[in-house]
Every structure is written in C-alpha cells, then in structure tokens.
C-alpha cells in the first residue's frame, strides 16, 4: 500500500507537465520508493540536480518515435536459453554468509518484523 500511494501522489502532482522543478516532497517520495534515507541537507541538492536531469532528458520528447518498436536488448533475436533441470551448484552457504552483517544458525538476521 505504501508504495502504491506514493506513486499515485507523484503521478497526480505532476502529470500535467514533464519538464518541471521537483518539490521537496517529491524528492522525499522518490527516495522512499528507492529505500534511500536522505539527510535534510541532501534533499535540496537532489531537488536541483534531478530537476535538471529530467529537463535534459526531456529532449527525447522531440524525437519522432511513431511506429518504432521499443528496444529492450542490443542483440535482436536473442532468446532465453534453457538448460537441463539438474543440480549444478554445491551448497556453499557458509562461505556466502561470511559476507553477511549478521547470521545465526545459517539464517540472516534482521530487526524484528512481527511484534
């Protein structure tokens, strides 16, 4: 619900125009969607630079793209390969978990989620 509400408010506040200056609230909203904690000092910095970037990429609106198929991949015709459904990996979870901030009994620990 959290994410949808934010996206919805972003959408409504700014669907009228694309080239615009982003507000503090919008930057806070984008940061929340991206799970980034910003300090109060960072917000105006990103307000300015993101507004400039969006203005800059606004140049794309001038391109003639009627009937053009969007390109999602640089090599056309490449299809996803399938492989036989056999086990190829060994269990190396202890080695992988050595990089984890907090582990117990093979489990990743996080702050309590359910009260």
């Amino acid at each position, binding site marked *: 619900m959290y994410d949808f509400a934010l996206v919805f408010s972003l959408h409504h506040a700014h669907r009228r125009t694309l080239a615009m200056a982003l507000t503090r609230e919008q930057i806070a909203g*984008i940061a929340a969607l991206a*799970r980034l904690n910003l300090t109060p000092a960072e917000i105006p910095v990103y307000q300015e630079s993101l507004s400039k970037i969006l203005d*800059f*990429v606004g140049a*794309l609106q001038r391109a003639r793209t009627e009937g053009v198929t969007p390109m*999602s991949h*640089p090599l056309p015709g490449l299809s*996803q390969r399938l492989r036989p459904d056999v086990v190829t990996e060994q269990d190396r979870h202890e080695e992988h978990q050595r*990089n984890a901030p907090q582990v117990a009994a093979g489990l990743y620990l996080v702050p309590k989620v359910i009260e």
Partner: protein
Amino acid sequence: MSELHKRTLTELAAGLRARKFSSVEVVRAFLGRIESRQGTLNAFVSVTSEQALAEAAGADRALASGGGGALTGVPIAHKDLFCTRGVRTSCGSRMLDNFVSPYDATVVARLKAAGAISLGKTNMDEFAMGSSNENSYYGPVRNPWNVQLVPGGSSGGSAAAVAARLVPGATGTDTGGSIRQPAALCGITGIKPTYGRVSRFGMVAFASSLDQGGVLTVSAADAALMLREMAGFDPNDSTSVEAPVPDYVAALDAPLAGLKVGLLKEFFDKGLEAGNERRIREALQVFEKLGAQLREVSLPNLPLSVPTYYVVAPAEASSNLARFDGVRYGYRCKEPRDLLDLYQRSRGEGFGAEVKRRIMTGTYVLSAGYYDAYYLRAQKVRQLITDDFRRAFAEVDVLMGPMTPTAAFAIGAKTDDPIAMYLNDIYTIGANLAGVPAMSVPCGFVAGLPVGLQIVGPHFGEAKLLNVAHRYQLETDWHTRVPQGYA
C-alpha cells in the same frame, strides 16, 4: 631487469615463454612500480602482492616444464568490479568495502586459466557511475600526464595504471564509455567489445543491457591477445553470445587497402575542441595513406544518445542496485530501529552521492505515470540510434571520429554540474546503446595531453577494429609515449 616495465604485454608473454626473464622478476618489477606510484596516482584499491608472487613462482615452474597458456606469468590488474574469489571486490563503494567475493568472475577465471597473474584491483567511479573517477569511496585517481587532472572514468584506475606502466594491461568495463574515455584521456588503447562477447558473470551489474567488459592496454596487439583469452560464450550469462571467438592476434596484420571508413559527421560539431579535431584529422590522413577510402556518414539520431542513456542506464541501475539491502552482504547501518530503517539507512549511508542520484533518477522514470514518457520513449529512441548504426555499416566497414570533445580536465572542475559531467560521454554512448564494438587509439597530443581516436565497428567486428588500430600503430608511435617521470 629494471627495464621490464617498458615491454608490452605481447613482448612480456613472448619473453616469458622464451625464458628471457622469469615471471617472479616481471611481477616484482611491476609491484615495485605500483608501490612507489600508488601514493601519487591512487590507481589501486587493493594490491595482492603475496598472492601474485606465489602465482608467479607457479608460472615459472609451468614455463620451465614447457607448459602454460598464452599469458602465463604476465601481470595484469582487474577493475574492482570484477569479482575475485577471496579478494575484496569493492566496486569503489563504501557499500562493498567489506565484501570478499566467494567466486571469480568468468573474465577473472579465464585470464587466470590463460596464465595471467593479477597484481590487484584498480580504483573506479563508484559502481562504474562517472566519467572522471572522482566518485570513488577510495578517493580520486590522478592522471599520470598531469596529476591535477582526472584520468577519465569509470575505469580510471585501470587507465592510469596502464599509462604509468604500473601494469601492462588491465580489465575494464564500458557501460557508456568507461573503457574508451579514460583510455583516450590517459593516452592508451582500450576496446569495448560487442555486447554479449565477454561474459558479464561476476561483473557487478550497473545497467545490464549496456554493460560490457573489455581491456585497456598499451597497444592494439596487446588488446587482441588479452581479449582473445577473455571473450567467448558463458552459460552463466544469459546474454552471452554463442559464437566462436576469432583469433584476434592472427587477424592484426591484414592490409587496409580499400577499407571503407565512415566519418561520424555528428561528432565533428562545435563542441569538439579545435586542437582535438586537428589530431583526429591527422589520424584520418594516415588511414588514407594506408589505402582507406574516407567518406562522411550521418547518424542523425546520435545527438539523442546522452538523454537516451540517462534514462535507460539509471532505470536499469535502480533495479540492479536494489539488491544492496544491508542484509545478505555489504554495508549495514548501526542500530537499525526496524527493517525499513535498516534498508533506508544502510543504502543512504552506503551509497555515494552520484549513485543515489542515478538510483533516484531511475526510480522516477520507471514509476507509474512516467514510464511511457521516459523509459518507453528512450527505448524507442534507442532503436532509432541502433538503426542509424545499421544503415551506416551497410555502407562502410568502420566508423571513425573523436573519442572525447576535449583532453583531460581538472579534478573538481565538473563535480558540481551532473549534466556537464554527463556530456563527457557524448561521443561514447552511441556504441553502448547499439551494442556495437568500439575502441580508442592514441592519436597525438594537445598541450601535452593525449587525444584518442574512436573506431567503431559492426556487431562482432572486434577483429577488424583491432586490425585497423594495429595498422595505424605500425605507422605511428603515439601509443608508445609514456608520461614524464614514468618511463
């Protein structure tokens, strides 16, 4: 043996095989240079001396018994976004400052299998986002031609290290110019292969439809040798292409008579500095002398490359970098209040300013209501740019033009203006969007600073690019120039 660093990678590989010198001697010589220059250039994040010397001893034993591969005993370095088992892989970020990879990237494994010895991991812009190497958690890399200037980025550490002859060759990655632009600004040779030519497995992902690994070396011949060992199909990378790798070294010498060269009209614009343009025009005359036929070619949608890239790349980055959650690996904030606080503060504190800027740009352009206007439209323009390249390669064999609009700029000169920084990549990004191979070749100097010529080829045209660059390097000696104090 104090002159070992003056030999190219190709010469070192041949000399080791002929047992003119040992791998331990070669590795010691380069490690000594790294140690004495690291304080000035900051080209490395980690130096793995002990491991390198142990591997060198093993290489000498293999060579003594007549064994070994194409690169046995030759020292190299890896950009610090290639995963190296048991060695920190930081990606230039606080987020991964404590990350010790549990596996080798395919590129790392292949070069190891060919016998190359890694001396360490090179500095870079954080998560490969940058064109100046000023965005590293480990501080900026300095350009050996003038330490007040940037080396370019994001593979700035690899470029500075090769230019200063701290290592004869290094890996890099190029998402929007990150091999070619620093190669140009540091006066060395760099190649970004076709998308899918080199495995991305174990390369920390930035923008997955654009990222491609490649090499930075002194000469095109060295690049051919290193790339031949790195390239090829990898089942661990779903976009790796199942096509045989030609012998790039064997293809180097083909004559260029009749080569059809297209000059990228849009690149010779008013943004290109006059001195840089003169060097490019002089290089083109060399190709004419070699029998190439020059003609101007227009790629009308190319000027839209930069805005297209700054939608597509941040969008993919915002998705790729969602994996850094402070739970499984990487940085975790102190005393998180709850799970959301853990995510938000770990990411807020672990990522640097430019990475956060791109994650937020990507989040915005992918969000509901904006997807069509930005991301979908950028994908359509990307198709138009790719079509331009395809039409051009129906008429010419290779495209040529400048690599960068200016020579290296001062550290700090563009850090306050992201758009000015993004425009450094104005000539590089088109090749990434279209997925075609491209390289930078040293072609002279402006006020003592190196200038790079860009050569672009059709998909899987690496052998032709390296051949064209090699023939040019037989006629010129720009690639052999070494910055003052590093000879």
